[in-house]
């Protein structure tokens, strides 16, 4: 079965640089979520999209933005990177219209800011 695809899997950036993370949800899933997970931490919700519209924002810094495109893939744009942005970034997708299903996580992008 198709899974959530994220790219790149690893990314190394310097402070103050920008980064773009991409996510391709499971086909026919209508909702995409972005999470940030620091070492030994629980995943923290950043932002979500339902049918290409932003549906909710969590603890996402103003330096970050995201969007979902017509083909349902999503991109997380991160600017003015800081050392504290180093983390695993997960994208998850779900089908939330009708019966509620679980969220299926992609393999994550490990971002290292030096």
């Amino acid at each position, binding site marked *: 079965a198709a899974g959530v695809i994220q790219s790149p899997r690893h990314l190394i950036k310097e402070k103050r640089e920008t980064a773009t993370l991409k996510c391709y949800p499971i086909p026919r899933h209508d*909702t995409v*979520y972005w999470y940030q997970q620091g070492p030994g931490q*629980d*995943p923290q919700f950043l932002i*979500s999209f339902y049918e290409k519209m932003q549906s909710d924002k969590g603890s996402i810094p103003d330096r970050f933005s995201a969007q979902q495109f017509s083909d349902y893939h999503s991109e997380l744009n991160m600017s003015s990177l800081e050392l504290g942005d180093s983390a695993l970034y997960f994208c998850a997708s779900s089908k939330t219209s009708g019966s509620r299903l*679980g969220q299926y*996580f*992609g393999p*994550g992008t490990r971002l290292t800011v030096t």
Partner: protein
Amino acid sequence: QQPVQSPQAVILREGEDAVINCSSSKALYSVHWYRQKHGEAPVFLMILLKGGEQKGHEKISASFNEKKQQSSLYLTASQLSYSGTYFCGTEKYGGSQGNLIFGKGTKLSVKP
């Protein structure tokens, strides 16, 4: 509001059972359970929506109490592959499209 998970960590021998709890101060719309191995993505185990609901997944099952404020994950006859960190993710009433707040996780180690 972040749900509270307990215990924080548990060590088992193969074949032993464990219970992981997840509680909230307010009634929840749903509870999701995930298992995450080090450096990997969280893997969805199950979702509970109804008060009093119980669900099973092979030797892993979960319950959601009538007031929808507590869920428990039951691991029976544990296997080495059960090792990992278990997270509950809770969805509040009035929240948007399944946005989850995760507990701090329970680290489960299964030894031979």
